[in-house]
Protein backbone atom coordinates (compact mmCIF):
# COMPACT_ATOMS: atom_id res chain seq x y z
CA UNK A 1 0.00 0.00 0.00
CA UNK A 2 2.79 2.39 0.98
CA UNK A 3 4.62 1.77 -2.25
CA UNK A 4 1.39 2.49 -4.09
CA UNK A 5 0.95 5.75 -2.24
CA UNK A 6 4.50 6.73 -3.11
CA UNK A 7 4.25 6.02 -6.80
CA UNK A 8 0.89 7.75 -6.82
CA UNK A 9 2.50 10.85 -5.29
CA UNK A 10 5.33 10.62 -7.79
CA UNK A 11 2.91 10.45 -10.71
CA UNK A 12 0.98 13.43 -9.39
CA UNK A 13 4.17 15.39 -8.97
CA UNK A 14 5.18 14.77 -12.56
CA UNK A 15 1.80 15.86 -13.85
CA UNK A 16 1.67 18.97 -11.69
CA UNK A 17 5.21 19.91 -12.61
CA UNK A 18 4.43 19.60 -16.28
CA UNK A 19 1.31 21.63 -15.77
CA UNK A 20 3.31 24.32 -13.98
CA UNK A 21 5.91 24.50 -16.73
CA UNK A 22 3.23 24.94 -19.35
CA UNK A 23 1.30 27.44 -17.28
CA UNK A 24 4.26 29.58 -16.21
CA UNK A 25 4.68 31.67 -19.38
CA UNK A 26 0.95 32.22 -19.47
CA UNK A 27 0.88 33.29 -15.83
CA UNK A 28 3.77 35.68 -16.52
CA UNK A 29 1.96 37.17 -19.50
CA UNK A 30 -1.21 37.55 -17.44
CA UNK A 31 0.64 39.33 -14.69
CA UNK A 32 2.43 41.58 -17.16
CA UNK A 33 -0.84 42.53 -18.81
CA UNK A 34 -2.20 43.58 -15.44
CA UNK A 35 0.90 45.52 -14.34
CA UNK A 36 1.15 49.30 -14.40
CA UNK A 37 4.85 48.92 -14.99
CA UNK A 38 7.27 46.07 -14.39
CA UNK A 39 10.89 46.59 -15.32
CA UNK A 40 13.68 46.59 -12.74
CA UNK A 41 11.80 44.85 -9.89
CA UNK A 42 10.94 41.28 -8.99
CA UNK A 43 7.21 41.99 -8.89
CA UNK A 44 5.15 44.59 -10.80
CA UNK A 45 4.75 47.92 -9.11
CA UNK A 46 0.97 48.03 -9.30
CA UNK A 47 -2.05 46.32 -10.84
CA UNK A 48 -4.35 47.89 -13.38
CA UNK A 49 -6.89 46.98 -16.05
CA UNK A 50 -6.00 49.93 -18.23
CA UNK A 51 -4.25 47.84 -20.88
CA UNK A 52 -7.40 45.76 -21.36
CA UNK A 53 -9.52 48.90 -21.53
CA UNK A 54 -7.15 50.32 -24.11
CA UNK A 55 -7.14 47.10 -26.09
CA UNK A 56 -10.87 46.58 -26.17
CA UNK A 57 -11.50 50.20 -27.20
CA UNK A 58 -8.95 50.07 -30.01
CA UNK A 59 -10.92 49.88 -33.30
CA UNK A 60 -8.06 48.26 -35.19
CA UNK A 61 -7.95 45.38 -32.68
CA UNK A 62 -11.72 44.91 -32.80
CA UNK A 63 -11.60 44.85 -36.59
CA UNK A 64 -8.78 42.29 -36.59
CA UNK A 65 -10.64 40.17 -34.05
CA UNK A 66 -13.80 40.23 -36.12
CA UNK A 67 -11.92 39.47 -39.32
CA UNK A 68 -10.13 36.51 -37.73
CA UNK A 69 -13.46 35.22 -36.53
CA UNK A 70 -15.01 35.66 -39.95
CA UNK A 71 -12.21 33.89 -41.80
CA UNK A 72 -12.15 30.96 -39.33
CA UNK A 73 -15.91 30.51 -39.29
CA UNK A 74 -16.01 30.77 -43.06
CA UNK A 75 -13.31 28.14 -43.50
CA UNK A 76 -14.99 25.81 -41.00
CA UNK A 77 -18.39 26.24 -42.62
CA UNK A 78 -16.88 25.40 -45.98
CA UNK A 79 -15.17 22.33 -44.55
CA UNK A 80 -18.33 21.05 -42.85
CA UNK A 81 -20.35 21.49 -46.01
CA UNK A 82 -17.72 19.75 -48.12
CA UNK A 83 -16.26 17.13 -45.77
CA UNK A 84 -19.40 15.67 -44.21
CA UNK A 85 -20.90 14.51 -47.51
CA UNK A 86 -17.45 13.42 -48.67
CA UNK A 87 -16.92 11.28 -45.57
CA UNK A 88 -20.35 9.81 -45.92
CA UNK A 89 -19.78 8.86 -49.54
CA UNK A 90 -16.31 7.45 -48.84
CA UNK A 91 -17.40 5.32 -45.91
CA UNK A 92 -20.75 4.21 -47.20
CA UNK A 93 -20.16 3.70 -50.90
CA UNK A 94 -16.40 3.49 -51.48
CA UNK A 95 -14.70 2.24 -48.29
CA UNK A 96 -11.58 1.47 -50.33
CA UNK A 97 -11.04 5.18 -50.94
CA UNK A 98 -10.37 5.70 -47.24
CA UNK A 99 -6.74 4.65 -47.69
CA UNK A 100 -6.28 7.20 -50.48
CA UNK A 101 -7.99 9.89 -48.43
CA UNK A 102 -5.66 9.21 -45.51
CA UNK A 103 -2.72 10.08 -47.74
CA UNK A 104 -4.41 13.10 -49.29
CA UNK A 105 -5.30 14.69 -45.98
CA UNK A 106 -1.67 14.62 -44.89
CA UNK A 107 -0.62 16.86 -47.79
CA UNK A 108 -1.37 20.16 -46.03
CA UNK A 109 1.07 19.04 -43.33
CA UNK A 110 3.64 17.62 -45.70
CA UNK A 111 4.27 20.97 -47.41
CA UNK A 112 5.59 23.70 -45.08
CA UNK A 113 3.33 26.79 -44.94
CA UNK A 114 6.08 29.07 -46.25
CA UNK A 115 6.54 26.89 -49.33
CA UNK A 116 2.87 26.43 -50.09
CA UNK A 117 2.14 30.12 -49.60
CA UNK A 118 4.71 30.96 -52.27
CA UNK A 119 2.91 28.56 -54.57
CA UNK A 120 -0.44 30.04 -53.68
CA UNK A 121 0.86 33.56 -54.33
CA UNK A 122 1.93 32.48 -57.83
CA UNK A 123 -1.34 30.74 -58.56
CA UNK A 124 -3.77 33.27 -57.20
CA UNK A 125 -1.69 36.46 -57.49
CA UNK A 126 -3.04 37.37 -60.90
CA UNK A 127 -5.25 36.06 -63.65
CA UNK A 128 -8.89 35.04 -63.39
CA UNK A 129 -8.49 33.70 -59.85
CA UNK A 130 -6.70 36.70 -58.34
CA UNK A 131 -7.56 36.39 -54.68
CA UNK A 132 -4.34 37.33 -52.92
CA UNK A 133 -4.97 40.07 -50.41
CA UNK A 134 -8.63 39.16 -49.96
CA UNK A 135 -10.10 37.05 -47.16
CA UNK A 136 -11.29 34.52 -49.75
CA UNK A 137 -7.83 33.05 -50.26
CA UNK A 138 -7.47 32.65 -46.49
CA UNK A 139 -10.80 30.84 -46.24
CA UNK A 140 -9.74 28.47 -49.01
CA UNK A 141 -6.30 27.96 -47.52
CA UNK A 142 -7.63 27.43 -43.99
CA UNK A 143 -10.01 24.87 -45.37
CA UNK A 144 -7.06 22.71 -46.40
CA UNK A 145 -5.53 23.07 -42.93
CA UNK A 146 -8.79 22.11 -41.23
CA UNK A 147 -9.25 19.12 -43.53
CA UNK A 148 -6.99 16.65 -41.67
CA UNK A 149 -8.47 17.51 -38.26
CA UNK A 150 -12.01 17.24 -39.52
CA UNK A 151 -11.42 14.11 -41.53
CA UNK A 152 -9.67 12.15 -38.77
CA UNK A 153 -12.01 13.10 -35.94
CA UNK A 154 -15.15 12.38 -37.91
CA UNK A 155 -13.73 9.16 -39.37
CA UNK A 156 -13.09 7.84 -35.86
CA UNK A 157 -16.63 8.75 -34.94
CA UNK A 158 -18.01 7.08 -38.07
CA UNK A 159 -16.13 3.88 -37.39
CA UNK A 160 -17.54 3.76 -33.88
CA UNK A 161 -21.19 3.88 -34.97
CA UNK A 162 -21.44 1.01 -37.47
CA UNK A 163 -22.61 3.22 -40.32
CA UNK A 164 -23.70 0.45 -42.67
CA UNK A 165 -26.04 -1.32 -40.27
CA UNK A 166 -27.57 1.96 -39.11
CA UNK A 167 -28.22 3.03 -42.70
CA UNK A 168 -29.63 -0.40 -43.59
CA UNK A 169 -31.90 -0.45 -40.55
CA UNK A 170 -33.19 3.07 -41.25
CA UNK A 171 -33.86 2.28 -44.90
CA UNK A 172 -35.73 -0.93 -44.13
CA UNK A 173 -37.89 1.11 -41.75
CA UNK A 174 -38.85 3.31 -44.69
CA UNK A 175 -36.34 6.17 -44.51
CA UNK A 176 -34.85 7.51 -47.74
CA UNK A 177 -31.06 7.80 -47.93
CA UNK A 178 -31.32 11.52 -47.09
CA UNK A 179 -33.64 10.93 -44.16
CA UNK A 180 -31.38 8.17 -42.85
CA UNK A 181 -28.33 10.43 -43.16
CA UNK A 182 -29.95 13.42 -41.45
CA UNK A 183 -32.03 11.71 -38.79
CA UNK A 184 -29.78 8.82 -37.86
CA UNK A 185 -26.17 9.32 -38.94
CA UNK A 186 -25.68 13.06 -38.51
CA UNK A 187 -26.89 13.28 -34.88
CA UNK A 188 -24.47 10.52 -33.98
CA UNK A 189 -21.55 12.40 -35.50
CA UNK A 190 -22.15 15.44 -33.28
CA UNK A 191 -19.37 14.55 -30.86
CA UNK A 192 -16.70 13.98 -33.50
CA UNK A 193 -17.80 17.06 -35.39
CA UNK A 194 -17.59 19.23 -32.29
CA UNK A 195 -14.12 17.97 -31.43
CA UNK A 196 -12.97 18.56 -35.00
CA UNK A 197 -14.44 22.06 -35.15
CA UNK A 198 -12.92 23.10 -31.83
CA UNK A 199 -9.52 21.75 -32.68
CA UNK A 200 -9.49 23.38 -36.10
CA UNK A 201 -10.87 26.63 -34.76
CA UNK A 202 -8.25 27.10 -32.07
CA UNK A 203 -5.56 26.18 -34.57
CA UNK A 204 -6.80 28.50 -37.30
CA UNK A 205 -7.52 31.37 -34.91
CA UNK A 206 -3.84 31.42 -34.04
CA UNK A 207 -2.56 30.92 -37.59
CA UNK A 208 0.05 33.49 -38.65
CA UNK A 209 2.20 32.42 -41.60
CA UNK A 210 -0.51 32.12 -44.25
CA UNK A 211 -2.37 35.14 -42.97
CA UNK A 212 0.75 37.30 -43.05
CA UNK A 213 2.08 36.14 -46.42
CA UNK A 214 -1.12 35.83 -48.40
CA UNK A 215 -3.12 38.75 -47.09
CA UNK A 216 -0.99 40.76 -44.66
CA UNK A 217 -2.35 44.14 -43.56
CA UNK A 218 -4.92 44.33 -46.34
CA UNK A 219 -7.22 42.13 -44.28
CA UNK A 220 -5.60 42.11 -40.87
CA UNK A 221 -6.27 39.04 -38.70
CA UNK A 222 -5.53 38.84 -35.00
CA UNK A 223 -2.08 37.29 -35.30
CA UNK A 224 -1.03 39.69 -38.05
CA UNK A 225 -2.22 42.58 -35.90
CA UNK A 226 -0.22 41.21 -32.97
CA UNK A 227 2.85 41.02 -35.20
CA UNK A 228 2.37 44.58 -36.43
CA UNK A 229 2.06 45.80 -32.85
CA UNK A 230 5.25 44.12 -31.71
CA UNK A 231 7.02 47.45 -31.25
CA UNK A 232 4.30 48.99 -29.10
CA UNK A 233 3.83 48.49 -25.35
CA UNK A 234 4.51 44.98 -24.09
CA UNK A 235 1.70 45.36 -21.57
CA UNK A 236 -0.74 46.05 -24.35
CA UNK A 237 0.43 43.02 -26.31
CA UNK A 238 0.21 40.82 -23.24
CA UNK A 239 -3.38 41.92 -22.77
CA UNK A 240 -3.97 40.94 -26.38
CA UNK A 241 -2.49 37.47 -25.92
CA UNK A 242 -4.43 36.85 -22.74
CA UNK A 243 -7.68 38.05 -24.33
CA UNK A 244 -7.09 35.76 -27.25
CA UNK A 245 -6.31 32.83 -24.98
CA UNK A 246 -9.33 33.49 -22.76
CA UNK A 247 -11.57 33.62 -25.80
CA UNK A 248 -10.48 30.20 -27.04
CA UNK A 249 -10.75 28.80 -23.51
CA UNK A 250 -14.30 30.08 -23.01
CA UNK A 251 -15.30 28.81 -26.43
CA UNK A 252 -13.96 25.33 -25.63
CA UNK A 253 -15.74 25.31 -22.31
CA UNK A 254 -19.07 26.40 -23.82
CA UNK A 255 -18.79 23.81 -26.59
CA UNK A 256 -18.07 21.08 -24.07
CA UNK A 257 -21.08 22.10 -22.01
CA UNK A 258 -23.35 22.09 -25.03
CA UNK A 259 -22.01 18.72 -26.02
CA UNK A 260 -22.66 17.13 -22.66
CA UNK A 261 -26.22 18.31 -22.16
CA UNK A 262 -27.84 16.16 -24.78
CA UNK A 263 -27.17 12.50 -24.09
Amino acid at each position, binding site marked *: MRADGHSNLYHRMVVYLLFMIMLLPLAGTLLYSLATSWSASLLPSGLTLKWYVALWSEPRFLAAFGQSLLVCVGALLLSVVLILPLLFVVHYHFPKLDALMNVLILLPFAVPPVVSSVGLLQLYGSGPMAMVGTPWILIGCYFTIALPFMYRAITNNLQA*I*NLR*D*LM*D*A*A*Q*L*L*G*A*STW*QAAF*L*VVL*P*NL*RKGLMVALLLSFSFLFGEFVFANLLVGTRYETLQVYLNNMRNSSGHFNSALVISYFAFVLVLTWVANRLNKDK*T
Partner: protein
Amino acid sequence: MSFVSVQQLHKRYAGTPVFENIDCQIERGEFVTLLGPSGCGKSTLLRCIAGLTPVDSGRILLDGQDIVPLSPQKRGIGMVFQSYALFPNMTVEQNVAFGLRMQKVKADESLARVREVLDLVELGSFAGRYPHQLSGGQCQRVALARSLVTRPRLLLLDEPLSALDARIRKHLREQIRAIQRELGLTTIFVTHDQEEALTMSDRIFLMNQGRIVQSGDAETLYTAPVDLFAAGFIGNYNLLDPDSASRLLQRPVANRLAIRPESITLGLNGELDGEVRSHSLLGNVIRYRVRVRDVELVVDVLNRSSADLHADGQRVSLSIDPTALREVA
Protein backbone atom coordinates in the same frame (compact mmCIF):
# COMPACT_ATOMS: atom_id res chain seq x y z
CA MET B 1 -48.33 -20.91 -54.34
CA SER B 2 -45.87 -20.32 -51.54
CA PHE B 3 -45.84 -17.03 -49.64
CA VAL B 4 -42.17 -16.47 -50.34
CA SER B 5 -40.67 -17.97 -53.45
CA VAL B 6 -37.06 -17.49 -54.41
CA GLN B 7 -36.44 -18.51 -58.01
CA GLN B 8 -33.11 -19.03 -59.77
CA LEU B 9 -31.36 -16.37 -57.75
CA HIS B 10 -27.79 -15.55 -58.77
CA LYS B 11 -25.35 -13.31 -56.99
CA ARG B 12 -21.72 -12.72 -57.91
CA TYR B 13 -19.31 -10.53 -56.06
CA ALA B 14 -16.17 -9.29 -57.83
CA GLY B 15 -16.40 -12.11 -60.36
CA THR B 16 -16.80 -15.01 -57.95
CA PRO B 17 -20.27 -16.39 -57.34
CA VAL B 18 -21.65 -15.92 -53.82
CA PHE B 19 -24.53 -18.20 -54.71
CA GLU B 20 -26.05 -19.62 -57.87
CA ASN B 21 -29.45 -21.03 -58.78
CA ILE B 22 -30.96 -20.61 -55.35
CA ASP B 23 -34.53 -21.88 -55.24
CA CYS B 24 -36.63 -22.04 -52.13
CA GLN B 25 -40.25 -21.82 -51.09
CA ILE B 26 -41.53 -20.63 -47.74
CA GLU B 27 -45.12 -20.96 -46.57
CA ARG B 28 -47.10 -18.25 -44.83
CA GLY B 29 -46.44 -18.20 -41.07
CA GLU B 30 -43.47 -20.52 -41.34
CA PHE B 31 -40.27 -20.09 -39.32
CA VAL B 32 -37.43 -21.01 -41.63
CA THR B 33 -33.73 -21.09 -40.82
CA LEU B 34 -30.80 -20.64 -43.18
CA LEU B 35 -28.05 -22.64 -41.52
CA GLY B 36 -24.46 -22.89 -42.65
CA PRO B 37 -20.84 -22.07 -41.91
CA SER B 38 -19.66 -18.49 -42.29
CA GLY B 39 -19.12 -17.51 -45.90
CA CYS B 40 -21.71 -19.92 -47.25
CA GLY B 41 -23.85 -17.09 -48.62
CA LYS B 42 -26.69 -17.25 -46.12
CA SER B 43 -26.38 -13.66 -44.93
CA THR B 44 -26.02 -12.41 -48.50
CA LEU B 45 -29.17 -14.28 -49.45
CA LEU B 46 -30.98 -12.61 -46.56
CA ARG B 47 -29.70 -9.17 -47.58
CA CYS B 48 -30.85 -9.84 -51.15
CA ILE B 49 -34.34 -10.65 -49.91
CA ALA B 50 -34.29 -7.43 -47.85
CA GLY B 51 -33.12 -5.44 -50.88
CA LEU B 52 -29.93 -4.25 -49.18
CA THR B 53 -27.77 -6.12 -51.69
CA PRO B 54 -28.73 -6.17 -55.37
CA VAL B 55 -29.11 -9.54 -57.08
CA ASP B 56 -27.66 -10.34 -60.51
CA SER B 57 -30.60 -12.33 -61.77
CA GLY B 58 -33.58 -14.32 -60.57
CA ARG B 59 -36.86 -13.51 -58.92
CA ILE B 60 -38.04 -13.17 -55.35
CA LEU B 61 -41.81 -13.42 -55.05
CA LEU B 62 -43.40 -12.18 -51.85
CA ASP B 63 -47.13 -12.90 -51.70
CA GLY B 64 -47.14 -13.29 -55.48
CA GLN B 65 -45.33 -10.00 -56.19
CA ASP B 66 -41.79 -9.86 -57.57
CA ILE B 67 -39.92 -7.63 -55.09
CA VAL B 68 -36.53 -7.60 -56.85
CA PRO B 69 -37.19 -4.24 -58.58
CA LEU B 70 -38.47 -2.65 -55.34
CA SER B 71 -36.29 -0.54 -53.05
CA PRO B 72 -35.86 -1.82 -49.46
CA GLN B 73 -38.20 0.93 -48.22
CA LYS B 74 -41.07 -0.42 -50.31
CA ARG B 75 -40.73 -4.14 -49.61
CA GLY B 76 -42.55 -4.26 -46.30
CA ILE B 77 -39.84 -6.39 -44.77
CA GLY B 78 -38.55 -6.09 -41.19
CA MET B 79 -35.03 -7.01 -40.27
CA VAL B 80 -33.03 -7.53 -37.08
CA PHE B 81 -29.24 -7.27 -37.22
CA GLN B 82 -26.53 -9.03 -35.25
CA SER B 83 -25.17 -5.62 -34.20
CA TYR B 84 -28.71 -4.52 -33.08
CA ALA B 85 -28.29 -1.34 -35.22
CA LEU B 86 -30.29 0.71 -32.74
CA PHE B 87 -30.07 4.45 -33.30
CA PRO B 88 -27.86 5.67 -30.43
CA ASN B 89 -29.25 9.21 -30.49
CA MET B 90 -32.83 8.07 -29.87
CA THR B 91 -34.61 6.62 -26.86
CA VAL B 92 -36.11 3.15 -26.97
CA GLU B 93 -39.48 4.68 -27.73
CA GLN B 94 -38.12 6.89 -30.53
CA ASN B 95 -36.23 3.94 -31.98
CA VAL B 96 -39.36 1.83 -32.10
CA ALA B 97 -41.48 4.71 -33.41
CA PHE B 98 -38.99 5.49 -36.22
CA GLY B 99 -40.68 3.26 -38.80
CA LEU B 100 -44.09 4.73 -38.00
CA ARG B 101 -42.65 8.25 -38.21
CA MET B 102 -41.38 7.45 -41.71
CA GLN B 103 -44.86 6.19 -42.65
CA LYS B 104 -46.32 9.44 -41.20
CA VAL B 105 -48.59 7.55 -38.81
CA LYS B 106 -50.52 9.92 -36.49
CA ALA B 107 -48.89 10.59 -33.13
CA ASP B 108 -51.56 9.02 -30.92
CA GLU B 109 -51.84 5.88 -33.02
CA SER B 110 -48.05 5.64 -33.18
CA LEU B 111 -47.79 5.92 -29.40
CA ALA B 112 -50.36 3.18 -28.88
CA ARG B 113 -48.62 0.84 -31.31
CA VAL B 114 -45.21 1.49 -29.79
CA ARG B 115 -46.57 0.76 -26.30
CA GLU B 116 -48.20 -2.42 -27.51
CA VAL B 117 -45.09 -3.79 -29.18
CA LEU B 118 -42.83 -2.80 -26.28
CA ASP B 119 -45.12 -4.71 -23.95
CA LEU B 120 -44.87 -7.67 -26.32
CA VAL B 121 -41.09 -7.77 -25.85
CA GLU B 122 -41.49 -7.04 -22.11
CA LEU B 123 -39.73 -3.69 -22.25
CA GLY B 124 -42.71 -1.43 -21.52
CA SER B 125 -40.92 0.28 -18.64
CA PHE B 126 -37.77 1.03 -20.64
CA ALA B 127 -39.33 3.41 -23.16
CA GLY B 128 -37.36 6.44 -22.00
CA ARG B 129 -33.93 4.80 -21.90
CA TYR B 130 -31.17 5.22 -24.46
CA PRO B 131 -29.62 2.15 -26.13
CA HIS B 132 -26.33 2.58 -24.26
CA GLN B 133 -28.23 2.15 -20.99
CA LEU B 134 -29.49 -1.31 -22.00
CA SER B 135 -27.94 -4.79 -21.93
CA GLY B 136 -27.31 -6.68 -25.16
CA GLY B 137 -30.41 -8.83 -24.76
CA GLN B 138 -32.57 -5.78 -24.11
CA CYS B 139 -31.09 -4.02 -27.14
CA GLN B 140 -31.98 -6.94 -29.35
CA ARG B 141 -35.53 -7.00 -27.99
CA VAL B 142 -35.84 -3.28 -28.82
CA ALA B 143 -34.55 -4.03 -32.31
CA LEU B 144 -37.15 -6.79 -32.62
CA ALA B 145 -39.89 -4.44 -31.43
CA ARG B 146 -38.72 -1.80 -33.89
CA SER B 147 -38.99 -4.19 -36.81
CA LEU B 148 -42.37 -5.57 -35.67
CA VAL B 149 -44.13 -2.24 -35.14
CA THR B 150 -44.50 -1.54 -38.87
CA ARG B 151 -46.27 -4.92 -39.25
CA PRO B 152 -43.92 -6.31 -41.91
CA ARG B 153 -45.03 -9.04 -44.30
CA LEU B 154 -41.81 -10.89 -43.67
CA LEU B 155 -39.34 -10.78 -40.79
CA LEU B 156 -35.64 -11.39 -41.36
CA LEU B 157 -33.31 -12.19 -38.47
CA ASP B 158 -29.60 -11.98 -39.27
CA GLU B 159 -27.77 -13.89 -36.51
CA PRO B 160 -29.65 -11.88 -33.89
CA LEU B 161 -28.39 -14.00 -31.00
CA SER B 162 -24.73 -14.35 -31.91
CA ALA B 163 -23.52 -11.36 -29.91
CA LEU B 164 -25.27 -12.44 -26.70
CA ASP B 165 -24.10 -14.69 -23.90
CA ALA B 166 -25.42 -18.24 -23.63
CA ARG B 167 -28.10 -17.84 -20.98
CA ILE B 168 -29.70 -14.77 -22.56
CA ARG B 169 -29.45 -16.42 -25.96
CA LYS B 170 -31.57 -19.38 -24.83
CA HIS B 171 -34.18 -17.17 -23.24
CA LEU B 172 -34.39 -14.81 -26.19
CA ARG B 173 -34.73 -17.55 -28.76
CA GLU B 174 -37.76 -18.90 -26.91
CA GLN B 175 -39.18 -15.40 -26.74
CA ILE B 176 -38.63 -14.79 -30.45
CA ARG B 177 -40.28 -18.08 -31.34
CA ALA B 178 -43.26 -17.38 -29.05
CA ILE B 179 -43.81 -13.92 -30.54
CA GLN B 180 -43.44 -15.27 -34.07
CA ARG B 181 -46.11 -17.93 -33.35
CA GLU B 182 -48.43 -15.42 -31.70
CA LEU B 183 -48.27 -13.04 -34.66
CA GLY B 184 -48.20 -15.82 -37.26
CA LEU B 185 -45.31 -13.96 -38.86
CA THR B 186 -43.38 -15.54 -41.73
CA THR B 187 -39.77 -15.45 -40.59
CA ILE B 188 -36.36 -16.23 -42.05
CA PHE B 189 -33.64 -16.72 -39.49
CA VAL B 190 -29.94 -16.90 -40.31
CA THR B 191 -27.50 -18.67 -38.01
CA HIS B 192 -24.38 -20.78 -37.97
CA ASP B 193 -25.45 -22.42 -34.72
CA GLN B 194 -27.04 -25.82 -35.29
CA GLU B 195 -28.65 -25.91 -31.86
CA GLU B 196 -30.50 -22.64 -32.54
CA ALA B 197 -31.58 -23.94 -35.93
CA LEU B 198 -32.78 -27.29 -34.61
CA THR B 199 -34.72 -25.90 -31.65
CA MET B 200 -36.41 -22.94 -33.31
CA SER B 201 -37.28 -23.83 -36.87
CA ASP B 202 -40.24 -25.29 -38.68
CA ARG B 203 -37.87 -25.96 -41.53
CA ILE B 204 -34.14 -25.63 -42.08
CA PHE B 205 -32.23 -24.84 -45.26
CA LEU B 206 -28.70 -26.09 -44.82
CA MET B 207 -26.32 -24.07 -46.99
CA ASN B 208 -22.74 -24.63 -48.07
CA GLN B 209 -20.65 -22.74 -50.63
CA GLY B 210 -23.57 -20.90 -52.12
CA ARG B 211 -25.84 -23.92 -52.47
CA ILE B 212 -28.77 -25.22 -50.47
CA VAL B 213 -27.47 -28.65 -49.55
CA GLN B 214 -30.51 -29.97 -47.79
CA SER B 215 -33.85 -28.69 -46.60
CA GLY B 216 -36.28 -30.24 -44.21
CA ASP B 217 -37.48 -30.20 -40.64
CA ALA B 218 -35.07 -30.53 -37.74
CA GLU B 219 -35.76 -34.25 -37.34
CA THR B 220 -34.92 -35.04 -40.96
CA LEU B 221 -31.83 -32.91 -41.02
CA TYR B 222 -30.52 -34.44 -37.84
CA THR B 223 -31.21 -38.08 -38.55
CA ALA B 224 -30.84 -38.21 -42.32
CA PRO B 225 -28.01 -36.01 -43.59
CA VAL B 226 -27.85 -36.19 -47.39
CA ASP B 227 -24.12 -35.84 -47.78
CA LEU B 228 -20.79 -35.62 -46.10
CA PHE B 229 -21.07 -31.91 -45.44
CA ALA B 230 -24.50 -32.23 -43.85
CA ALA B 231 -23.33 -35.10 -41.67
CA GLY B 232 -20.23 -33.18 -40.66
CA PHE B 233 -22.05 -29.95 -39.90
CA ILE B 234 -25.01 -31.20 -37.92
CA GLY B 235 -24.67 -33.22 -34.74
CA ASN B 236 -21.38 -34.88 -33.83
CA TYR B 237 -21.47 -37.68 -36.32
CA ASN B 238 -18.76 -40.33 -36.42
CA LEU B 239 -17.66 -40.14 -40.04
CA LEU B 240 -15.83 -43.27 -41.19
CA ASP B 241 -14.07 -43.77 -44.49
CA PRO B 242 -15.16 -46.89 -46.47
CA ASP B 243 -12.20 -48.99 -45.23
CA SER B 244 -12.81 -48.36 -41.55
CA ALA B 245 -16.54 -48.77 -42.03
CA SER B 246 -16.06 -52.18 -43.71
CA ARG B 247 -13.74 -53.29 -40.91
CA LEU B 248 -16.15 -52.16 -38.23
CA LEU B 249 -19.24 -53.77 -39.75
CA GLN B 250 -17.32 -56.79 -41.17
CA ARG B 251 -19.02 -56.31 -44.51
CA PRO B 252 -18.06 -54.27 -47.57
CA VAL B 253 -19.22 -50.67 -47.43
CA ALA B 254 -18.89 -48.61 -50.60
CA ASN B 255 -19.36 -45.11 -49.22
CA ARG B 256 -18.46 -43.17 -46.16
CA LEU B 257 -20.49 -44.10 -43.12
CA ALA B 258 -22.05 -41.73 -40.62
CA ILE B 259 -23.01 -42.96 -37.16
CA ARG B 260 -24.56 -40.72 -34.53
CA PRO B 261 -22.72 -40.99 -31.18
CA GLU B 262 -25.95 -41.51 -29.22
CA SER B 263 -27.07 -44.45 -31.39
CA ILE B 264 -24.27 -46.59 -29.97
CA THR B 265 -24.88 -48.25 -26.62
CA LEU B 266 -22.16 -49.28 -24.21
CA GLY B 267 -22.05 -52.36 -22.01
CA LEU B 268 -24.32 -55.43 -21.61
CA ASN B 269 -23.39 -58.10 -24.15
CA GLY B 270 -23.01 -55.97 -27.25
CA GLU B 271 -21.76 -57.58 -30.42
CA LEU B 272 -18.53 -55.52 -30.54
CA ASP B 273 -15.61 -55.37 -28.11
CA GLY B 274 -13.76 -52.14 -27.55
CA GLU B 275 -11.58 -50.20 -25.18
CA VAL B 276 -12.30 -46.77 -23.68
CA ARG B 277 -9.56 -44.36 -24.77
CA SER B 278 -10.78 -41.22 -23.07
CA HIS B 279 -13.91 -39.60 -21.81
CA SER B 280 -15.18 -36.12 -21.18
CA LEU B 281 -18.11 -34.94 -19.15
CA LEU B 282 -20.41 -32.58 -21.05
CA GLY B 283 -22.92 -32.31 -18.20
CA ASN B 284 -25.96 -34.46 -18.89
CA VAL B 285 -23.93 -36.49 -21.39
CA ILE B 286 -20.62 -38.33 -21.11
CA ARG B 287 -18.69 -38.46 -24.35
CA TYR B 288 -16.40 -41.50 -24.69
CA ARG B 289 -13.81 -42.19 -27.31
CA VAL B 290 -13.85 -45.94 -27.80
CA ARG B 291 -11.49 -47.98 -29.96
CA VAL B 292 -13.18 -50.85 -31.77
CA ARG B 293 -11.46 -52.95 -34.44
CA ASP B 294 -8.87 -50.19 -34.95
CA VAL B 295 -11.61 -47.60 -35.44
CA GLU B 296 -12.07 -44.79 -32.97
CA LEU B 297 -15.72 -44.00 -32.28
CA VAL B 298 -17.31 -41.21 -30.32
CA VAL B 299 -20.04 -42.55 -28.08
CA ASP B 300 -22.47 -40.37 -26.13
CA VAL B 301 -24.04 -41.86 -23.03
CA LEU B 302 -26.61 -40.20 -20.81
CA ASN B 303 -25.03 -39.35 -17.48
CA ARG B 304 -27.40 -41.26 -15.18
CA SER B 305 -25.14 -42.00 -12.21
CA SER B 306 -21.46 -41.95 -11.46
CA ALA B 307 -21.58 -45.72 -10.84
CA ASP B 308 -22.03 -46.28 -14.61
CA LEU B 309 -18.88 -44.37 -15.48
CA HIS B 310 -16.35 -46.33 -17.53
CA ALA B 311 -12.73 -45.55 -16.72
CA ASP B 312 -10.15 -44.92 -19.44
CA GLY B 313 -8.56 -48.20 -20.60
CA GLN B 314 -11.55 -50.28 -19.54
CA ARG B 315 -12.83 -52.99 -21.89
CA VAL B 316 -16.41 -52.43 -22.94
CA SER B 317 -18.82 -54.02 -25.33
CA LEU B 318 -20.86 -51.97 -27.77
CA SER B 319 -23.93 -52.38 -29.90
CA ILE B 320 -24.83 -50.16 -32.81
CA ASP B 321 -28.43 -49.62 -33.83
CA PRO B 322 -28.41 -50.75 -37.49
CA THR B 323 -31.17 -48.30 -38.47
CA ALA B 324 -28.97 -45.40 -37.36
CA LEU B 325 -26.20 -46.28 -39.83
CA ARG B 326 -26.14 -43.91 -42.73
CA GLU B 327 -24.04 -44.08 -45.84
CA VAL B 328 -23.24 -40.69 -47.27
CA ALA B 329 -21.69 -39.80 -50.58
